[in-house]
């Protein structure tokens, strides 16, 4: 399309040219007139010029002023007519001009000389000198800077002159005068232009103004779009200069120049804004961490492995924000402004645990001092406002808990929508190979190592594409595959059921142990549930992997199946864990009731005791460590989650170190002294397990969401864990894993991860919300102690911190009569949107299909046309060659005939040859022959000539005689 744009832009310029040409023509005419006048004057009274100049001008104006407009109009008319080649008018005009030229041209030359002479002779005539100077200056400045001229008229003249030069051609064409006249005119114009500024915008007719305006706008547009034009810089610069001059000149004439300052300001601001945007964009891209690491991995291991790391980085980002929320709004305020450690029973380690509170084993289990700190729910006080800021701690705690979940929902859904959008645009696979070929190089690469990696990754991607292409053509024994797939699914189901039963069994057993009391059991018995879950999580995926080889799916599909299965497994594990936890919560609540009762009796006995001893001393100071307290189930839940996260992290890291690193080291170094090839044979190096890692990440996140309400430290822990695993896994992948044998592109799986994350998010918020809403908080720990339900904090805030009308409005709004219709409305809206989106999608798909078929049809049509054209061409060529041969034969035969009848016609023939010097065209020769010789017995030859003219046996022997004939 570059040519098109080029042409149109040239057209634009042409419009301008026309206009300018017209202007210029009549201005030059005027110039003639002036020149004539002036010439006369100069001849007549040379010396008075200086003094009279101003007056003369005025006189000119006075003289011509009135009829000038008229004449101008007339001339314009004439111009038009001439352009239409109206001869009469043109002649009249010509005459007119010729007359003038006759009168002037000689004079002009003289006057010019005169001026110079005068100049040298009489320096007194400053005016003339000035003119000369201007002329000179202009000539000099022609190429270089021109903006130095501040005076408007000068600028205008400049512009005009330039334009004139550009349009000279046009001018020449239009005004058909001799070249001498032209040059003289040119001279005239220059001199004239420098003297006065006759072009007044007021003199322009409205339509002309309109035209001018259009032209100016065109030019402006041109300037705007110049940077996007595919021209070489030189051309751009020239065009720019021209159009800038044009705009500058005529914009002033249009009166638009008044807003120039504002315009310039606007332009500057837009430029600044663009710059800022770009800088910000650059900054943003520079802020994305681990980009190079991931790129490196991508280039070595393909996009599927990289997609895991990208997902990890995304998770890291989310966790950073969750961490910021909990840390900034809950933990820090409590630590800074809340009551210090040891001031209350809930903030003190109880006496019985004091001895072991600093032990590492206890701290590792998040007991002891860790338990009685801001890390857990129980440490927070139920004081409504803390510190000099009057920070509403309980409210903040509640809102942060809700906010983290809400934020996570928002982010996940938004990302999913964006991904869907992207894939909706990009899933068009019609140009797979061409895109790969033309768009795969990353032009940003400036690092030799990255470039190497990029080469590697491009090669891989091509191999992937070829593989996929071949895959799509492959078909195997369908029945066998089906059977194997059913079998595989059956085996997987068995595995899942088995692991479910195992967990159920273990949980039941652990409950029994818990009833017995944990102290009299071994370490294994105490940690049985966790360990079994971790082991199952470790080995079941391997089993699934083995089973999935039966299925013979495409790797991408296989990955999704694998993910689904592991997901089911993990989900089962998680829910059994939650159920166990619920049981424990119930146990604790029972215990709490007992403690509560005990405490009242304890207090009563305490007071009774004191009363009996000393009736007037109620202020007995009891060390908070000694006060009996409830079990605080919330802290227990938090602790459980923290422990789970820790053990999960540890298993991940240890598997990484043992399963990947140690294996790699062993394989690498034992290979020197082993009986079979370890590297190529059985143990080999491990491949990076994308599905398992992704699921681990997702479930880990689910646990964070579940437990973050009861343990505000969880996001912080998770950030730490993700940060470490980013580096550790990057390192492990680069140093001990081998690329998958079948590298494939993970294009669609990103949203698959997201979908799983969403499901997990939903499933993990369910129990959290359930506990928050239904179970009353413990009576002596946490920010909501003493309330009936945790969300009562909202009511409290509404009642005490907001004006009365607000709570009234709120209570009205929360009336079921209002809420139910609202929910109904929302459901309806969702339904409506859902159906519209579905119909849109359908339309989209249909359109795409239509496009594709049309494309194919076009292709076919084109191909057919091309084929036909080719055949036509071939035929034509054949015909042409035939014709050529025919001609040759014709000639030959003709000449043969001629040779036959040499004696008779030789003279005439020679005459012809002598004239032409070569063979006559056959028709001519024919005619000539026909004319010259008698229609004898050989006429049938001529008749044959017209039809086919091919006389094989006849012409051959005579061919050789032709040259001899010509040689005559």
């Amino acid at each position, binding site marked *: 399309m570059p040519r098109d744009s080029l042409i149109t832009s040239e057209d634009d310029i042409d419009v301008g040219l026309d206009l300018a040409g017209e202007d210029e023509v009549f201005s030059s005419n005027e110039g003639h007139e002036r020149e004539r006048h002036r010439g006369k004057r100069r001849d007549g009274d040379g010396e008075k010029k200086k003094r009279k100049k101003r007056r003369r001008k005025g006189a000119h104006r006075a003289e011509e002023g009135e009829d000038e407009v008229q004449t101008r109009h007339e001339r314009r008319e004439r111009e038009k007519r001439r352009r239409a080649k109206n001869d009469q008018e043109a002649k009249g005009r010509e005459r007119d001009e010729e007359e003038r030229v006759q009168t002037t041209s000689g004079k002009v030359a003289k006057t010019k000389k005169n001026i110079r002479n005068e100049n040298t002779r009489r320096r007194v005539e400053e005016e003339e000198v000035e003119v000369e100077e201007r002329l000179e200056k202009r000539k000099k400045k022609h190429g270089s800077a021109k903006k130095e001229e501040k005076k408007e008229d000068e600028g205008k003249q400049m512009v005009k002159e330039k334009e004139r030069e550009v349009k000279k051609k046009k001018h020449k064409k239009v005004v058909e005068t001799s070249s001498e006249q032209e040059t003289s005119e040119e001279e005239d114009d220059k001199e004239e232009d420098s003297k006065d500024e006759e072009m007044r915008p007021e003199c322009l007719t409205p339509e002309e103004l309109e035209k001018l305006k259009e032209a100016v706008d065109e030019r402006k547009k041109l300037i705007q779009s*110049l940077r996007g034009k595919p021209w070489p810089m030189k051309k751009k610069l020239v065009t*720019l200069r021209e159009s800038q001059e044009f705009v500058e000149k005529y914009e002033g004439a249009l009166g638009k120049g008044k807003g120039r300052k504002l315009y310039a300001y606007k332009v500057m601001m837009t430029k600044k804004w663009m710059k800022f945007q770009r800088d910000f964009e650059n900054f943003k891209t520079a802020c994305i961490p681990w980009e190079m690491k991931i790129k490196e991995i991508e280039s070595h291991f393909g996009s599927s492995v990289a997609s895991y790391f990208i997902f990890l980085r995304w998770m890291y980002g989310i966790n950073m924000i969750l961490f910021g929320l909990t840390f900034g709004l809950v933990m820090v305020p409590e630590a800074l402004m809340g009551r210090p450690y040891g001031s209350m029973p809930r903030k003190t380690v109880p006496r019985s645990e004091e001895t072991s509170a600093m032990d590492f084993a206890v701290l590792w289990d998040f007991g002891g001092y860790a338990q009685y700190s801001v890390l857990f729910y129980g440490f927070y006080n139920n004081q409504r406002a803390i510190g000099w800021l009057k920070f509403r701690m309980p409210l903040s705690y509640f809102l942060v808990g809700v906010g983290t979940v809400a934020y996570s929902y928002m982010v996940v859904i938004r990302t999913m929508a964006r991904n869907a959008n992207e894939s909706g645009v990009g899933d068009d696979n019609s140009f797979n190979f061409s895109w790969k070929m033309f768009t795969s*190089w990353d032009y940003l690469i400036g690092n030799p190592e990255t470039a190497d990696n990029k080469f590697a990754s491009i090669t891989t991607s091509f191999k992937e594409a070829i593989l996929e292409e071949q895959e799509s053509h492959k078909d195997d024994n369908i029945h066998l595959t089906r059977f194997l797939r059913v079998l595989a699914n059956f085996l997987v189901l068995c595995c899942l059921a088995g692991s479910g039963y195992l967990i159920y069994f273990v949980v039941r057993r652990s409950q029994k142990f818990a009833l017995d009391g944990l102290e009299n059991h071994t370490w294994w018995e105490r940690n049985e549930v966790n360990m079994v879950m971790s082991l199952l999580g470790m080995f079941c995926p391997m089993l699934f992997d083995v089973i999935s080889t039966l299925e013979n799916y495409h790797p991408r599909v296989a990955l999704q199946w694998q993910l689904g299965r592991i997901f089911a497994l993990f989900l089962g594990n998680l829910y059994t864990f939650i159920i166990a936890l619920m049981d424990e919560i119930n146990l604790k609540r029972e215990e709490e009731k007992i403690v509560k009762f005990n405490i009242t009796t304890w207090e009563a006995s305490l007071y009774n005791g004191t009363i009996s001893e000393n009736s007037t001393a109620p202020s007995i100071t009891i060390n908070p460590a000694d006060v009996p307290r409830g079990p605080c189930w919330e802290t227990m839940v938090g602790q459980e989650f923290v422990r789970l996260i820790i053990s999960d992290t540890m298993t991940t890291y240890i598997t990484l170190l043992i399963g990947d690193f140690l294996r790699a080291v062993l394989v690498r170094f034992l290979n020197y002294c082993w009986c079979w090839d370890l590297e190529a044979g059985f143990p080999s190096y491990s491949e990076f397990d994308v599905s398992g890692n992704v699921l681990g990440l997702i479930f880990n996140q689910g646990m964070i969401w579940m437990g973050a309400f009861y343990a505000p430290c969880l996001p912080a822990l998770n950030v730490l864990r993700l940060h470490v695993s980013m580096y550790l896994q990057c390192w492990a992948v680069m140093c001990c894993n081998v690329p998958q044998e079948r590298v494939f592109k993970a294009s669609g799986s990103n949203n698959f991860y997201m979908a799983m994350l969403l499901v997990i998010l939903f499933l993990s918020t369910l129990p959290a919300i359930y506990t928050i809403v239904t179970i009353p908080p413990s009576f002596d720990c946490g920010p909501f102690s003493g309330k009936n339900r945790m969300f009562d904090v909202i009511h409290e805030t509404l009642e005490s911190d907001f004006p009365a009308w607000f709570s009234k409005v709120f209570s009205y709004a929360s009336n079921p009569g209002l809420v139910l219709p609202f929910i109904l409305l929302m459901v309806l809206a969702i339904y409506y949107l859902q159906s519209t989106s579905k119909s849109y999608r359908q339309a989209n798909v249909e359109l795409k299909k239509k496009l594709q078929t049309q494309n194919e049809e076009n292709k076919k049509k084109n191909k057919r046309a091309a084929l036909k054209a080719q055949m036509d061409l071939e035929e034509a060529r054949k015909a042409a060659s035939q014709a050529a041969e025919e001609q040759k034969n014709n000639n030959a035969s003709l000449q043969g005939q001629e040779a036959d009848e040499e004696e008779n016609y030789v003279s005439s023939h020679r005459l012809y040859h002598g004239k032409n010097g070569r063979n006559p065209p056959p028709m001519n020769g024919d005619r000539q022959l026909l004319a010259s010789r008698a229609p004898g017995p050989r006429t049938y030859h001529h008749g044959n000539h017209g039809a086919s003219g091919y006389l094989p046996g006849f012409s051959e022997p005579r061919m050789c005689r032709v040259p001899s004939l010509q040689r005559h």
Partner: protein
Amino acid sequence: MGNKQTIFTDEQLDAYQDCTFFTRKEILRLHGRYHELAPHLVPMDYTNEPDCKLPLALIVNMPELKENPFRNRIVESFSEDGMGNLSFNEFVDMFSVLSEMAPRELKAIYAFKIYDFNVDNYLCKEDLEKTLNKLTKEELTPEEVQLVCEKAIEEADLDGDNKLSFADFENMITRAPDFLRVVFHQREELFWHLLQDCCSITPPAASYCSYCRTAPPSGDPAPTHPLSLPHTPPSLRQQKKTTSPMLQLR
């Protein structure tokens, strides 16, 4: 290069800004880069538009282009003579088109030129083969190359002449999802480089880009700028080369 007025007049700078996607500063930086490619050839004073051109070999060695498999083609297609000799105007033009601000259409036009190795205004099979071999460092087998080229032509060729005209190419490339995002952009790299130049004030350091110079033989650690995060210093790079593939051999 503190004194701007000696390099360009204000008008020239304005004109360049109107003709390219660069700001004043960036144009000056580009001139700096151009100058430092051949300090003895390129004058510092550009006010009278000197006519000087740099050969392809010099330009191709710029860090921005050095690793690009199509570097020769890029430079050639921006040069007026088609041989790769670039005047400053063309040099600026090249980076303007390669900058992220340039619109898709413009990039498509020049991309076509770049991939058109034999300058016949069509991308024929030989062009594609060359492109592919440059992209993969000739690691694909000839059969694979053949297959890919055939496929690519089959996909994008709308008029059935077994080669891609610009219309075909544009139709294909404008639908590519990541053409604008990744490809054909000299985004951070160039601008970081440019920034670097601006930061290095002392003349000896300014004579070449400070963070892409290779480690001097004396082993003095190359000064890494805080902004050059994605680039590993050469010393590390050396070390990595030896260690990272340790266990990956098969």
